[in-house]
């Protein structure tokens, strides 16, 4: 049974998407509920996966393996498995997908069947990226997610949806095809070294790559992943796509899709090309820091709430990249936790903004204000998620932000393995923490407090779907699990670190090989989290 859980995580939503297109009903609510059932069922499977994974003990190995032939003569197979790193990202995908489907019940007015079918396909595709152990499979799912996302943004998006969808697709595809070339090239390098053609990620880790090819391969992989992250200056597609996408699209885009890029860096680029990554780490770090500051400053001056949160994503993902390129255990695990936290709090913020938008059909600061009086429940959630996004101690954002800054600060000064970064990077990046407090609190202040300023309520919904002034039960239930996670991960992050540490350690062993002459003391780095609660 446990062998088939991972393929089922993909098959259930795909079959569900197929069923939705043919299900014989005229009732649009039923279609939505059916999609929610399928998606929740998939989430149930991920919980089962979690249980089996934990039962097997946490040792950094891949578990729940599934393998069958795909193109044997070209060395590719359908090979699934999860370790501590992918576990959390699969869980995040499994959680955010049903929530975003649930949040669309009242906001989607046309094309219900195709909309929910596409969201389910998107869920299947994203899960596929995280569980693939075959590089070609990884790439296939990585690119495939563009298809449903393009259509979701393009069909159900805002007024600028056409350029947004095109920009999203072409930017990411242009980067992605270069990654594709890199994947074929690295498989060939392995083939010419060993005589076997394979796309197995774990096997390809050991490929010895000539100096001349390293930079080329780095750039090839970097092109695809950096656009997806997005790293400054490849971020220009993101604000437009985020703003124009329907709420569910923004949630999935910010919550999971951006993580495909950072996951690619962590799983593929760094372990496969550790030497050139070490050399280029300062460059990447500078780009990340520019992203942090530039994203924050841009967020500060936005007049559209959704755009503000979109730019804050650019800043947050800059932190995520910075932590990874510190080349130490704290940095990697902090970066992974940051991926999860950003998915939770930014996803939740997009959900809240979507709920406000559904009532007033505007997201302009000039037309909204003082909503805390009228919508106290919404205000509570919004402040909670904003604080989590700022990184308030006690909430989840703080843990990851702190461990990344700590990792960057100590990166160059560790005795065992001197990382490429150092104190100056950490000090400049820390200014991002202040900036994020400025723009987030500014947003809360303008939207929630001050004199009441609200446009006429747009309530053209059918009687059964009418929305109350404040959040209704469904909307509160959507936000509740995310709010709980924000607090739990903030107060007790050990559940996260304990389950990811061995897998992170394995990645770290692969990437910290540059200075072979210095014996590295893995024990000291592995226990570097002692200060954690």
């Amino acid at each position, binding site marked *: 049974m446990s062998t088939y859980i991972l393929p089922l995580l993909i098959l259930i939503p795909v079959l569900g998407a197929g069923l939705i297109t043919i299900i014989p009903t005229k009732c649009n609510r039923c279609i939505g509920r059916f999609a929610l059932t399928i998606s929740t069922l998939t989430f149930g499977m991920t919980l089962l996966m979690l249980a089996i994974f934990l039962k097997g003990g946490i040792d950094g190995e891949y578990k729940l393996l599934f393998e069958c032939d795909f193109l044997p003569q070209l060395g590719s197979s359908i090979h699934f498995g999860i370790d501590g790193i992918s576990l959390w990202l699969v869980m995040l995908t499994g959680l955010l997908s049903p929530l975003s489907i649930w949040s669309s019940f009242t906001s989607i007015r046309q094309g219900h069947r195709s909309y929910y079918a596409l969201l389910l396909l998107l869920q299947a595709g994203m899960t596929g990226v995280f569980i693939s152990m075959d590089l070609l499979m990884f790439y296939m799912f990585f690119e495939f997610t563009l298809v449903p996302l393009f259509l979701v943004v393009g069909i159900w998006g805002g007024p600028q949806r056409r350029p947004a969808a095109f920009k999203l697709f*072409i930017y990411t595809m242009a980067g992605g095809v*270069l990654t594709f070339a890199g994947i074929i090239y690295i498989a*060939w390098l392995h083939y010419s070294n060993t005589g076997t053609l394979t796309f197995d990620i774990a096997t390809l880790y050991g490929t010895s790559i000539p100096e001349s090819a390293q930079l080329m391969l780095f750039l090839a992989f970097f092109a695809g992943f950096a656009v997806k992250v997005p790293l400054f200056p490849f971020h220009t597609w993101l604000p437009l796509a985020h703003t124009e996408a329907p709420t569910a699209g923004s949630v999935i885009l910010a919550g999971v899709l951006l993580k495909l890029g950072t996951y690619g860096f962590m799983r593929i680029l760094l372990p496969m090309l550790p030497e050139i990554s070490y050399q280029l780490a300062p460059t990447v770090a500078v780009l990340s820091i520019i992203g942090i500051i530039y994203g924050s400053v841009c967020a500060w001056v936005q007049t559209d709430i959704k755009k503000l949160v979109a730019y804050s994503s650019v800043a947050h993902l800059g932190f995520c990249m910075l932590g990874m390129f510190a080349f130490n255990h704290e940095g990697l695990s902090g970066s992974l936790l940051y991926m999860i936290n950003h998915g939770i709090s930014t996803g939740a913020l997009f959900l809240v903004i979507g709920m406000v938008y559904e009532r007033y059909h505007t997201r302009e600061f000039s037309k909204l204000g003082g909503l805390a009086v009228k919508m106290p429940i919404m205000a509570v959630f919004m402040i909670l998620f904003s604080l989590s996004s700022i990184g308030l101690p006690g909430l989840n954002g703080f843990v990851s932000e702190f461990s990344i800054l700590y990792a960057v600060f100590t990166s160059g000064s560790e005795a065992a393995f001197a990382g490429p970064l150092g104190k100056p990077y950490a000090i400049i990046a820390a200014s991002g923490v202040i900036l994020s407090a400025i723009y987030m609190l500014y947003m809360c202040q303008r939207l929630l407090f001050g004199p009441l300023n609200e446009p006429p309520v747009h309530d053209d919904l059918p009687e059964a779907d009418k929305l109350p002034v404040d959040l209704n039960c469904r909307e509160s239930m959507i936000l509740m699990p995310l709010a709980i996670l924000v607090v739990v991960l903030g107060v007790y992050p050990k559940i996260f670190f304990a389950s990811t540490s061995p897998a992170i350690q394995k990645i770290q062993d692969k990437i910290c090989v540059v200075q072979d002459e210095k014996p590295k003391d893995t024990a000291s780095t592995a226990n570097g989290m002692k200060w954690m609660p």
Partner: protein
Amino acid sequence: MNDLLTIILPMIILIAGGLLMLMLGLAKNATVRLNLPTITLAVIVFALLITLCPYLFGCPKISPDTSVKLTTLGRFVTFITLAIGALLVLVGFRPDRSQDDPEKSIAGEYFAMMLFSLSGMLMIAVANNLIVLFLGMELVSIPTYVMVGLSRRHDHAREAALKYFFLGAMAAAIMVYGFSFLYGLAGSTNLDVISEAINAGHFTGMQSIAFSLIIVGLCFKIAAVPMHFYAADVYQGAASPVTALLAFLPKLAGFYGLILIISLIEWPLLSNKLPVTVGIIIGLLAALTMTLGNALALMQKNVKRILAYSSIAHSGYMMIALLIGTANNGSGIASLLFYISVYAISTIGAFGILSLIERDGEEAQQLSDLNGLAKQHPALAAALAVCVFSLIGMPLTGGFIGKFTVFSSLVTGGAVGTMRYTSIVLLIMGVVNAAIAAGYYLRIIAACYIDDGAFTAKVRIKPPQAIAIALAVALTIILGVAPQFLASPAAKAASEFSTDIQIPIQQTIKKADTAFAINE
């Protein structure tokens, strides 16, 4: 049964079927004429069954000096020709508009020409002689000229037919001129004899001229730049079912002809001392073809012209595979055959859908005609989207696997010696072109799904076309999810083809070595 007869039996069946169509097309009884497509389909299925027979009863053994030779590769090509031919009949399954007057009916001629054209491809698939190869090429081409002219009562169709005919005739003349050089060099038209002669002799300039001329002639068939000028006008002028056929049959004929001709020398092309010119020509043409095809497609507003220029670009990708050929266990040829099958299936699906959409009694051709299709006919729009995503090369459709096999064969088969940098440059050009192609293909999807505007055209859908489109979409997805059922026979056929050819070459090289030693 006579071995020779076994080889050419499917071809004979198709030609006999074509003659039958010509007669039945003049029948007074309208029911007979209405059933012509069904009979055509039956003929093709019968030929397909006959083709499969050697699989059941073993491959016939033919002495090497005959003009026809059945290789595993040839049999595979026969198989995909007939299978995709059946799909083409379904797409072209249309009611005869002049049911009352047999003299005005064109159904008989239309399906007869289709059968003749398919039989020409079968002839190329078994050709082992320059004459047979040339006959096959003309048998593929000439009926297509007629079909283009017959397909629509419109000046565009006449213009297209004339243009296609004159340029095609000139290309054939150039090809035959090249053949004459080969005959002059080897003293025989048999491909085995020519191969031995070329590999035994030393490099001569004549060989370069011969190969260049033949490649130019064949590149017309596959619409490679700069022999591509006819493509857009002809594709636009012909009715969509005929355009679908043009996108597949002449391309397959041209590529199989190129495989046969280039197999006279050794693969991979650029690392071989003799045919350096051939390698440079093919590599350069591949780069030019995909880049220019994509660049020109970006500027079009007419869907058929977009697909026409994109078909040029696809030829460029396939030429990359041609550069590798039989090197590395036939991976180049295998990927070429896989790619052309996937491309044909997706293109037939796309043109099949376009042929159903009518405006003012004419086929809808502008992008704006597709606006609102997703709302009015969601299934049709979804089918078009799947086909177009496959042509872009998105994963989980056959198009992605096609691109992957081509690029993978390029790197694994070509990354040796002097060819290494060429293959890396071609790889980067290829993937960048794949991204450029997304720019115009997405406009087709956007026209169906995103752009505002009401759907004003009419959709005429009949069960046969519905079946054809459903089959094309299903195959496109299946080939993307479980490509092995086509990729593995293709790989097998290609690897056996390479051993088949290479053994005599090695022997002749030994012979040449000993001859050289004796001379010394």
